[in-house]
């Protein structure tokens, strides 16, 4: 079956522009995660959804970052007034597990969106 897809794959934004990054999780996956990976570093957690509920947004670096998943499937990560430090690869991952203790916990990662802010 289809894996996690993300679009666009590459995005160049001028400083101050707003951007929207899309994630299509694997069908039926309850949990959805966003991570930010700066060049040469490991991914860092941004936010987590269980269905449409955003249960953890502790990793969002500022109030310019906003994520939503209104129907419990597709998710959008929006960055307002982009800054150069926002340049990174944004990874989306999904897992089946409906709860933290469930068996189907493994996260499947999408290809990422590479954002460059000039």
């Amino acid at each position, binding site marked *: 079956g289809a894996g996690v897809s993300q679009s666009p794959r590459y995005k160049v934004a001028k400083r101050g522009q707003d951007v929207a990054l899309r994630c299509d999780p694997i069908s039926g996956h309850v949990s959805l995660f966003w991570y930010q990976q700066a060049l040469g570093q*490991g991914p860092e957690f941004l936010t987590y959804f269980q269905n449409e509920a955003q249960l953890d947004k502790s990793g969002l670096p500022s109030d310019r970052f906003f994520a939503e998943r209104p129907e419990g499937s597709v998710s959008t990560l929006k960055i307002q007034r982009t800054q150069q430090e926002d340049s990174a690869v944004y990874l989306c991952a999904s897992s089946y597990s409906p709860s933290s203790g469930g068996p189907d916990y493994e996260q499947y990662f999408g290809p990422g969106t590479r954002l460059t802010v000039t």
Partner: protein
Amino acid sequence: ELKVEQNPLFLSMQEGKNYTIYCNYSTTSDRLYWYRQDPGKSLESLFVLLSNGAVKQEGRLMASLDTKARLSTLHITAAVHDLSATYFCAVDGYKAAGNKLTFGGGTRVLVKP
């Protein structure tokens, strides 16, 4: 706060030799993951280690977990060029909401002929 440290950060390997990557984490965690990332690509899952003493092997790669020492190792046997990539370990907050992953900084592996 859960912290994950890998070392070394960079590993230059000679083909045919054996090497080990270390992953230390700071608090109790029930699941440890190893991923491979090729340049410009996403994360490819290699291993999931679930319990103390767990050992998993796939080809030239073998991963082990010591939860008491909070240490996992990724052992590469007889390195070949195809293994050149960046390797990440990660742990999840299993008993915290959502299983969010905390990653190490990665080990960049370059296998030279």
